[in-house]
């Protein structure tokens, strides 16, 4: 398989992103290494082909954002909005991720080996997120579809105003958000969770996780609630 390297210490980010958008052919499976990312924003954003992009170092904001088909691996940490609005493919952060990781992702798999910051998986729309460490407050806010697997702990207001996304939590939560509740795990949950853990390369026992989902009390306007929720 063809391999390419872009060293961002000596070539521009625009040059690399232009190649990733215009230089690849349909179904291209090339392996691309990115050296010295040095926290640059918008690395490997909006990819449309099944290439593998390995980023060797710390990435800035929006790395792997809007990804489709590609596999993006970050050998370092990721800034705000990693894999935001991902459509398919995968993004794997070997270090920690900052705020808003996987926000609004429609599909694909985001794996974060370390901790994720606040608002991880906010407004998730069908993607899957597996976090090896802990997540910050307001994670899973208004998440509509897809799964979040949290192997560590969660901050405040986890799953606030959830729709149909499901959260599996192994550690402790500081507080659940409005309308989020613990539910019993079903066989289907164990199967889904085992598959996600396996894809993420994490070997926790699915039995050690709890399920959090929407109580669906906010789905309809309740005129009798007297504005007290």
């Amino acid at each position, binding site marked *: 398989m063809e391999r390419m390297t872009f060293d961002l210490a000596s070539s521009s980010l625009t040059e690399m992103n232009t190649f990733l958008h215009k230089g690849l052919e349909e179904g291209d499976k090339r392996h691309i290494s990115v050296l010295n990312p*040095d926290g640059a924003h918008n690395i490997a954003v909006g990819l449309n082909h099944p290439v593998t992009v390995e980023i060797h170092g710390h990435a800035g904001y929006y790395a792997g954002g809007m990804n489709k088909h590609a596999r993006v691996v970050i050998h370092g940490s990721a800034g705000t909005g990693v894999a935001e609005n991902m459509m398919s493919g995968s993004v794997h952060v070997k270090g920690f991720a900052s705020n808003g990781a996987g926000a609004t992702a429609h599909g694909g798999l985001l794996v974060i080996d370390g901790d994720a910051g606040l608002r991880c998986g906010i407004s998730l729309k069908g993607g899957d997120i597996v976090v090896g460490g802990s997540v910050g407050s307001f994670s899973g806010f208004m998440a509509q579809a897809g799964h979040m697997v949290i192997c560590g702990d969660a901050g405040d207001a986890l799953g606030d105003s959830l729709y149909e996304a499901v959260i599996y939590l192994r550690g402790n939560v500081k507080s659940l958000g409005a309308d989020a509740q613990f539910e019993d795990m079903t066989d289907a949950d164990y199967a889904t969770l085992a598959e996600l853990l396996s894809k993420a390369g994490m070997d926790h026992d699915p039995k050690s996780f709890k399920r959090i989902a929407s109580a669906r009390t906010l789905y309809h306007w309740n005129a009798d609630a007297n504005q007290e929720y």
Partner: protein
Amino acid sequence: MCGIVGLLVKTPALKERLGELMVPMLIGMTERGPDSAGLAVFGDSLAENSRKLSLYSGLTDDGADFNWHGLTHALKEHLDVDAHIDVKHNHAVLSFAVSPELVKRWLRENHPKLHILSTGRTIDLYKDIGTPAQVADRYDFKSMKGSHLVGHTRMATESAVTPDRAHPFTAGEDFCLVHNGSLSNPNSIRRKLTPAGIHFETDNDTEAACRFLEWRLREGDDLEVALQKGFDELDGFFTFLMGTPDKLALIRDPFACKPAVVAETDDYVAIASEFRSLAHLPGVKHANVFEPAPEEMYVWNA
């Protein structure tokens, strides 16, 4: 948006290279703060009865042509004060061995447009409008020496783009603060502090936070207690980085609305809004890089 940077060196030899290591950090934050920049450097302390003032002449009629040596002669003539002056463009550090209040009162009466940027025994302060690269060049930031520093690049949102509204802000002696974010209750903080005799020099929201925290320290709170009161009283978005003669301190608001990242090695602790300002530092590839948690206190000793 704004950019913050901080650097504290643990290895004594690196004190000589403090400014040189910092300049790329400051320039790395240009996109976050292109309109003004500033820097507070903490170096060797003056003798106990000595003080220094960082002064800015850019708002006087003479600007960068201000007659600094005329100023020291006048201080000798009127107050019998032997002052030493170290001039960099429209900034100067004035040092002397009398009460700083005596000198400051004289300056306010005789040179009302001369802006007093800082007072203390260890702090030197520079700030002005312009890109970070221009400001760093104007005052030769790369030659700065010391144990730690606090820097800022500004993209103004809450008050006008003027040199006195650039960061760092100072209050009292040897205390400075830079801010990325915006406060929602600076006016109620001002109303609270004004009756205590605290005077504000600008309409900037960050000045309210700076004077609030310095007031708590002066009232006897230790840094941790003062910062906890800051969490209780200051509402809005903030990453604050503060400097004292022997410490750097960092806090982020409970919603972590404004970024910060830290890289620590055996030789230094470096703080910036984003990693791209840390990427050039020696040994950073093997540094412990982490994101400070919201509503936590981080204090590093020089």
